[in-house]
């Protein structure tokens, strides 16, 4: 964002494989992961993080299970054929999936899409997966072109509230931290505070996540849902006041209600809010946050905190870490 007071610049190593999946440094065979990390968009994919700092990489380190970063897939049922397509390309079907649900996501699950697209997804998931991949390839090439990069830099350099107004200024909420620096929060991070989510939305989201667990179980994969709150929900209750404080507490409540609804449905859940909340105050006092100040993503500290907790949950199920004769070593075709 332009006209920021203190820029956080990060040098990082960003590597993908030939299909665009973020590489996770692993001791084992990359195409034979034990854990598939899904959802989470840029949080899973590793925006602002080097290859070895991403959530799947940290999870692999703490759990000692080979992990695959599939964070680039969709979260709605459109993502399922993409996952089938991926599974068909892995040498071994994963045992476990960690589905990262970001707080601001609006999930809609109705067992898949209707119409012709739904028919293709149901009958020819690989075709559907390739079509989506082709569409992304066809529309994304100019997003990484030199012209795009130069244009964005030109825009940021002049839209600094001196030469030209910063059009993003009004869509950024500034929270003053105890050390005098600012936490810049974007509107979508505050969505759950600004738009009250009612019980129906809690139920619908829980039902959708349960659907994901069941769909992955049909494929022989044991799913865990990681509920990931925004920075605003974590730090907001300690920094806001008045009406804004009431609203952000509403966002907290949404995550807690969602966790309860998931547990009622026997969905294996890890709530990152419960991990961050106890340490949030100390982090603010020391200035050692788990998230970047001027970006909504988590930093390596935050990643490791959550990955450690998720790894503990995974490893508490000893059957998963031991050799499982039922687990097929054939390519993941869906036939066990």
């Amino acid at each position: 964002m332009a006209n920021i007071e203190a820029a956080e610049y990060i040098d990082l190593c960003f590597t993908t494989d030939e299909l665009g999946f973020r590489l996770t440094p692993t001791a084992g065979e990359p195409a034979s992961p034990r854990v598939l990390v899904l959802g989470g968009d840029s949080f899973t994919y590793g925006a602002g993080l080097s290859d070895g700092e991403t959530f799947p990489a940290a999870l692999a380190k703490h759990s000692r299970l080979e992990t695959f970063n599939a964070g680039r897939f969709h979260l709605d049922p459109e993502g399922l054929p993409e996952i089938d397509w991926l599974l068909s390309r892995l040498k071994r079907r994963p045992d476990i999936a960690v589905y990262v649900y970001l707080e601001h996501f609006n999930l809609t699950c109705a067992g898949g899409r209707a119409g012709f697209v739904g028919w293709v997804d149901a009958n020819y998931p690989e075709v559907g997966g390739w079509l989506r991949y082709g569409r992304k390839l066809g529309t994304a090439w100019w997003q990484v072109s030199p012209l795009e990069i130069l244009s964005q830099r030109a825009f940021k350099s002049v839209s600094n509230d001196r030469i030209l107004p910063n059009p993003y200024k009004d869509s950024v909420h500034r929270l003053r931290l105890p050390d005098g620096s600012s936490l810049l929060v974007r509107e979508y991070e505050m969505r759950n505070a600004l738009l009250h989510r009612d019980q129906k939305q809690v139920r619908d989201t829980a039902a959708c996540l349960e659907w994901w667990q069941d769909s992955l179980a049909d494929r022989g994969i044991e799913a865990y849902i990681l509920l990931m709150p925004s920075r605003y929900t974590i730090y907001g209750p300690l920094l806001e006041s008045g009406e804004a404080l009431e609203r952000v507490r509403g966002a907290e409540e949404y995550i807690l209600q969602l966790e309860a609804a998931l547990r009622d449905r026997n969905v294996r859940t890890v709530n990152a809010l419960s991990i961050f909340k106890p340490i949030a105050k100390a982090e603010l006092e020391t200035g050692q946050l788990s998230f970047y100040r001027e970006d909504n993503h988590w930093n390596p500290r935050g990643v490791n905190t959550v990955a450690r907790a998720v790894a503990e949950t995974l490893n508490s199920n000893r059957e998963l870490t031991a050799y499982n004769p039922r687990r097929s070593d054939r390519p993941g075709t869906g036939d066990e």
Partner: protein
Amino acid sequence: MLFNSAIFLFVFLPITYAVFWSLRRKNSRYIWLAITGYVFYGYWNPKFCLLMLFSTLVSYSAGLGFLTAGEDPRRRKLLLIAPIAVDLCLLGFFKYADFTIQSWNWLTAWAGRPPLAPLDILLPVGISFYTFHTITYIVDAYRGHIRPTRNFWEFACYVSLFSQLVAGPIVRFRELQDDLEGIQHKERRVYLDLGWSFFVIGLVQKVLIADTIASVIDPALQHVGALSSASAWLCMLGYSYQLYFDFAGYSNMAVGLGYLFGMHIPQNFNSPYKALNPSDFWRRWHISLSRCLRDYLYVPLGGSRFGSLATYRNLMITMLLGGLWHGAAWTFVVWGAYHGLLLCLYRRFGGWWDALPVLVQRVGMFFLVVIGWTMFRATTWNDAVTLLSKMLVPVDAGAELIGAGVLIAMLLIAAAIAHSGRNTFEIRHRWTPALSASLALLLVLCLVRIIGFKGSPFLYFQF
């Protein structure tokens, strides 16, 4: 899909252009342009393609009816009224239903009646334009000005032609008929250079001038109450030039795209800020709409044939409806009434006005137009009144206008072009290597701005 978007410039246009010129038969070209028109329109919302298709089928069927109706006056009347009623009902429902409910609620609130719930109807982009295309087709067929076409694809191509589909110009079938009939002829290629020239100039007008002005004034106009008088004037002058270069730029791009496919899209702007009086202004601004209002509303109402009072009435009705056409809001109606009043006053006192020096007439007319644009730009009554009061009653205190330096520079450039430069229909479009290189550089700057900056749609898309 916007003309100033990467998907249009790098994907849609090259494919449409390449395939069009590889096709040899007339019907093939009609079909291809019709299909691409629907793809272009459906990019916003595929469901609204059905609406356009329905309107097309109704008007096409009515056109066929005229061919078989002969001189039967009752049948011809029915073929005139029915499709126009269908088009106006579509337009009325999608564009004005919620406005009518809001107005009704405002009126009945005083009587303590419970408000009606709004329908929250999504306005189909360009519905004001393509319904006018089909209405003009029907009326011209009724009047015998055109012979309706039997070729469905030719008519579909005319209605859905992407170059003028969503923001005009409002091109009448008779203006395109010869081009459509000769669409397969090779000599159409001579217009390609002209087409690219118009297109690039239009893109520069929109992206480099209009959008740059918008990037400064849009944030400021969100907080009208915080403006000083100077800032208010700068913003409204900026908006006046933004609107002109945005719409004229789009129209030039539409003309250029027409030429690229062998068609003459008529001129839509003729240096309107050089106008000397209100009548002159409306002969130069949004020419295609003015002509439609004149030929299909003002003249049928009686025009100026039945005395002064009738003329004033007809002018006011025409301009009120013209204002309402622009948007479902009372600010647009008031803007239309304002211009109607100017036209009536000019009709009454024009002799006195015409005796003034030309410079005074031009400056005075521009000042009157800028005042009118405050109602056009404001989203609420309060904003319109606040803006006008700040412009007319000096107020020193106000928030800093960020980007004022850039705005003033752009205003100077825009003013020089708008008030003294030649417009795109007056220049020769024969580029020396040096000028071609300059144009190419401007095109690259346009691409940088399109890709890197926060883009804005064409202002007339909302109408």
